[in-house]
């Protein structure tokens, strides 16, 4: 089973990279893009028996390792 983990900075945390990207987009004329938040994307191959176990495992590693809960939040998708 595969899990996709998306890690992003919390909304309250300033994202200097996202800010620079949106400024670049504006200077290219893409005024329709009002904001950009940059994040990280992980694809995990999971060797587990069922979906519940996959959710638990992916959630645990995301919380403990992949994201830093002080500044980041995460979302897990299974497929």
């Amino acid at each position, binding site marked *: 089973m595969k899990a996709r983990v998306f890690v992003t*900075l919390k909304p309250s*945390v*300033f994202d*200097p990279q996202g800010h620079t990207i949106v400024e670049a987009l504006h200077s290219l004329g893409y005024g329709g893009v009002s904001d950009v938040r940059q994040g990280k994307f992980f694809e995990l191959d999971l060797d587990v028996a069922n979906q519940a176990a996959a959710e638990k495992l992916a959630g645990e590693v995301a919380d403990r*390792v992949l994201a*830093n809960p*002080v500044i980041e939040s995460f979302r897990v998708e299974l497929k």
Partner: protein
Amino acid sequence: MTFAVVVFPGSNCDHDAYHAVKHVLGQQAQFVWHKERSLGSADVVILPGGFSHGDYLRTGAIARFSPVMDAVKEFAAAGRPVLGICNGFQILLECGLLPGAMLRNRDLKFHCEFVHVRVDKTNTPFTSLCTQGQVLKMPIAHGEGNYYAPPDTIASLEESGRVVFRYTTPDGDRLDSANPNGSLNAIAGICSEARNVVGLMPHPERACEAAVGSDDGLVLFQSVVHTLARQGSLQAVGR
């Protein structure tokens, strides 16, 4: 007195720290590989600067799980002095010995330059010989030194007097232009609740001899020697 300098794969200031302790300060220094589970007979632990594990994932995020970190946590919990410099500070944040996290520098640039930091608290083992408000000239070399913590954590750090170092002008004035990375409240270094664990982004170990541009950093190492010697003599009196 023995300083343990922990070496992670990718540490690059381990030898600078060793040199400062052994050849400038004149104390014993020993390297401890990150796979070790013991700190030996160390009196002080230094987590040096560098790019442990290539800064992959986040700075310090992988190093925090190194076997030696359990020993470092025990050492810290016993109230003994731990100094995290630059990447060492980032590791202390990741492992929870100090609160907060590092963001990319606000201008997204890697800063390698001398900065000035003001010593705001002298009641830590690493600042005991400083004077309140003393300004130290030390180098920084980091891309992610933009200290962040949630507002309640910042408030509690300030109230409990745990902001030890702040970026200032050479005169000790807190101007935004003197803040190289955008750190909240110009925070350059903090200490733990028990005050024995100190982390800072500037490199005191690279500022211990005038020949390299500054010897202002030496006082941090002299301070911990002084603090431990004083504790030792107090214990001797107690016996």
